[in-house]
């Protein structure tokens, strides 16, 4: 008995959208953030959405993307590891539009949507500094996954954000060496705590979960969330989150696509102004005037009055 297996062939005649992730959904992070887009795509645009999971098996990327190209008009691709496979598949499937989310891709066919990392991390740094100042800490922590340009970029934005709010505060940066090791992330967070940090921001994927875990199990460190609202990971400890609106980016681009406004090879860039980033504050943990200050700072950032780049 049981359910019959679904069919691979699409039945709907409307817009067909594929979302490919290089690992898999259910990460409570970046990929799930993209998954939120499925619902509005189907209800607002009447699109049929299919998802593809690469499971970090590099050899499967190209075949799966090919499957995606065969079945869809528009395919969003998430995850750095799939860039090569995507450019290749995009090149030979010109009737399908590929969009790479979260990064710049040089390809005449595929589009890319980049998040201005430094800008987002700037606000995370501002929040971390504000929280640290209120806890009279002299330093704040930055946990990086691996030593990659995006992460360095983020660290720069973060540091700029911190020094904008609390010029004397030191930033303790530490790299986990992996995006998938929460127990190491936790140890790093605890290590930063002993070195005097009272707030921490982890740009480290799953490893970052360790920092929330440390906070949840009694550490006095306040972790700033990233990508999604992370307050559930350490209830009552997360002062706020820097949310990456992958869903909004996807839906807006899908809308542009159905309006015929997407150009192959186009490169778009998202920040607070374009709804790519969004800050969420926990008003129980952050005083209202602090929130106001931070919102004002964000406005300045958007207007270009302050630069997110490190000095």
């Amino acid at each position, binding site marked *: 008995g049981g359910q019959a297996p679904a069919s691979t062939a699409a039945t709907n005649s409307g817009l067909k959208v594929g979302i490919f992730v290089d*690992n*898999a*959904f*259910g*990460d*409570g992070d970046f*990929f799930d953030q993209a998954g939120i887009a499925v619902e509005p795509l189907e209800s607002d645009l009447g699109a049929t959405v299919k998802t593809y*999971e690469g499971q970090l098996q590099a050899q499967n990327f190209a075949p799966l993307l090919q499957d995606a190209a065969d079945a869809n008009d528009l395919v969003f691709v998430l995850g750095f590891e799939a860039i090569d496979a995507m450019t290749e598949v995009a090149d030979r499937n010109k009737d399908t539009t590929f969009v790479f989310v979260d990064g710049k891709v040089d390809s005449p066919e595929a589009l890319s949507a980049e998040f201005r990392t430094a800008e987002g991390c700037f606000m995370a740094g501002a929040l971390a500094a504000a929280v640290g100042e209120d806890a009279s800490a002299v330093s704040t922590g930055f946990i990086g996954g*691996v*030593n990659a340009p995006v992460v360095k970029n983020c660290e720069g934005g973060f540091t700029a954000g911190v020094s904008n709010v609390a010029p004397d505060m030191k930033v303790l*940066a*530490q*790299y*986990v*060496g*992996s995006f*998938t*090791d*929460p*127990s*190491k992330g*936790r*140890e*790093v967070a605890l*290590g930063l705590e002993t070195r005097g940090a009272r707030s921490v921001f982890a740009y480290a994927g*799953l490893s970052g*979960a*360790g920092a*929330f*875990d440390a906070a*949840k*199990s*009694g550490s006095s460190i306040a972790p700033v969330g990233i990508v999604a609202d992370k307050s*559930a*990971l350490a*209830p009552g400890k997360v002062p706020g989150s820097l949310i990456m609106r992958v869903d909004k980016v996807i839906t807006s681009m899908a809308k542009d696509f159905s309006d015929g406004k997407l150009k192959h090879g186009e490169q778009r860039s998202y920040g607070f102004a374009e709804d790519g980033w969004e800050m969420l504050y926990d008003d129980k943990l952050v005083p209202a005037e602090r929130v106001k200050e931070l919102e004002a700072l964000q406005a300045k950032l958007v207007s270009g009055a302050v630069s997110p780049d490190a000095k």
Partner: protein
Amino acid sequence: MRLTTPILLAALACLPTQWTKDLNVGLEGGMLFGAFGGVVFGLTFGSGFAAVTLTIAAGVLSGLIFGWLITRLNVNVFIAGIVLNIFAGAATVYLLRSLFGVKGTLSAPGIPSLPTYRIPFIDGIPVLGPILSGHTVLTYLSWAIVAVAIFAVKNTVLVRHLKAAGEHPAALAAAGGNVQRMRILAQVWCFALCAIAGAQLSIGQLTLFTEGMTNGLGFVALAAVIFCRGRVLLLTLMSVVFGLASAVAIQVNDSVMPPQIAQMLPYLIAFVGLIVLARTTKDGGVRIATPNMES
């Protein structure tokens, strides 16, 4: 200390299987299942104590099955161990996805964490305090097991029979002992302790489960077991050394050493130790009971 506990527990788990010459190389898998069990049982029953108890029970059951496979059905213990590692990696992901629909990490507010306890007097001592105090029950349990094991090696009939079952099974059988029971018992112990080690990882240190969260710890413990050649104190020492090496690896700053190189430390120490061991002991390195490909 935090990093030592799972290594120590896993190494203690493996010790009797070394005595019976059925060295279980599936520690990694056993721990992974333990970690998963801790989180799942914790989530369903909401209590850390229930989680640990049930995980141990599951460990005992798996140990029985494993023991049955390697004794009654003559499955080579090395093959079984390797398969266990791979199976655990796959099965936990499978269950994670099919039960909870998540990939990577299972982290939910409902997962209980084991409370930590401070030892009244020691807690106050400057340097020792933070090292020796403020741990979960499981950490203290691991120390207790070390003490019990040292005592048991000297004074119990059981350990003698376990060792005899490995060193000269025929002698034990001829003397009326039960070799198979000893071999199964060693595996049951191994799985039960691996379960505890895993639970310490997932609900002792953290309150979440990640795919492959054991991350080679089981193999490090295995190396410790091979170095100690059956001696408990040495085993404890090795586990502490490996624990320290991992701790250093985490805290070392990027500017001093890239994290990947730092992470190599425990493995490098184990590797060099292995060579030193083979060079310094008379009968060379210990052979793991690898299967005969003809069988």
